């Protein structure tokens, strides 16, 4: 084959000639009737949550729904308040706070703003 064109034509002819064994794909599929378990590592659920392609996926939706229910439950109960109080995150205003040195008492009521 002297020219590249002739070689190209021959390559396409040879490479696209029909395969003699047309039953082979069916044999392959028949052997795939019984499938082994899929590999799904223990850490699959964090990966599912971190999947940013935003395609709907039940693990992510279930986690979001669970977090929402948990947050609402904590909010509706006084559990959160008790925790905050235990951690001294909330201080009830008293006469000992800094406001006593900032605001003057009202002349009529005697109360501080």
């Amino acid at each position, binding site marked *: 084959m002297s020219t590249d064109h002739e070689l190209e034509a021959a*390559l396409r002819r040879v490479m696209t000639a029909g395969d*003699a064994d047309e039953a*082979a794909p069916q044999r392959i599929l028949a052997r795939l009737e019984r499938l082994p378990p899929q590999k799904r590592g223990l850490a699959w659920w964090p990966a599912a949550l971190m999947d940013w392609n935003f395609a709907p996926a039940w693990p992510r939706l279930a986690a979001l729904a669970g977090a929402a229910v948990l947050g609402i439950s904590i909010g509706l109960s006084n559990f959160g308040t008790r925790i905050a109080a235990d951690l001294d995150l909330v201080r009830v205003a008293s006469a000992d706070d800094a406001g006593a040195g900032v605001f003057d008492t009202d002349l009529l009521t005697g109360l501080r703003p």
Partner: protein
Amino acid sequence: MEGPSDHDLMARTAQGDRRAFQTLAQRHAGRAFGLARRMLGNGAIAEEIVQDALLRVWTNAPRWRPEAAFRTWLYRVVVNLCLNARRRAPDLPLDAAAHVADPAPGADAQLETRERDRRLAAAIDALPDRQRTAIVLIYQEGLSNAETAALLDTSVSGVETLLVRAKRALRIALAE
């Protein structure tokens, strides 16, 4: 292509949908077998390769990320398995050259073409692995140079170099 896309079928396969996987396998098994058979020249081993590749698709489906087309991913698995098979057994027995098209009976020119095609097929089988793979992917599977480069994990210029060397070797073999 009618029916669900490869992407949708893979997403369902990742969820354990066996019927989706069977549909996907049925859709691609034939072409994958043709690719493996061309690369190896041995139909029996090509069947094992494709079965292995599709099993890997099934077992690893939950980890699949759609960074490339499914066909490209599957072909890459098949190509790598074929190259590994060739490295382990470089003297694989070749099937008879049944992949040369029968010409219409009669003319001497057609018989000459058939003989030349038979010699070309044998020369392709004798190419180094990566050159033969490039020839098969481009001339049999109809992939572009860019798709072939992605599949072989090389650059487009790398594919073009493989093709130049392969064609040079084929011309030399046919001239003998």
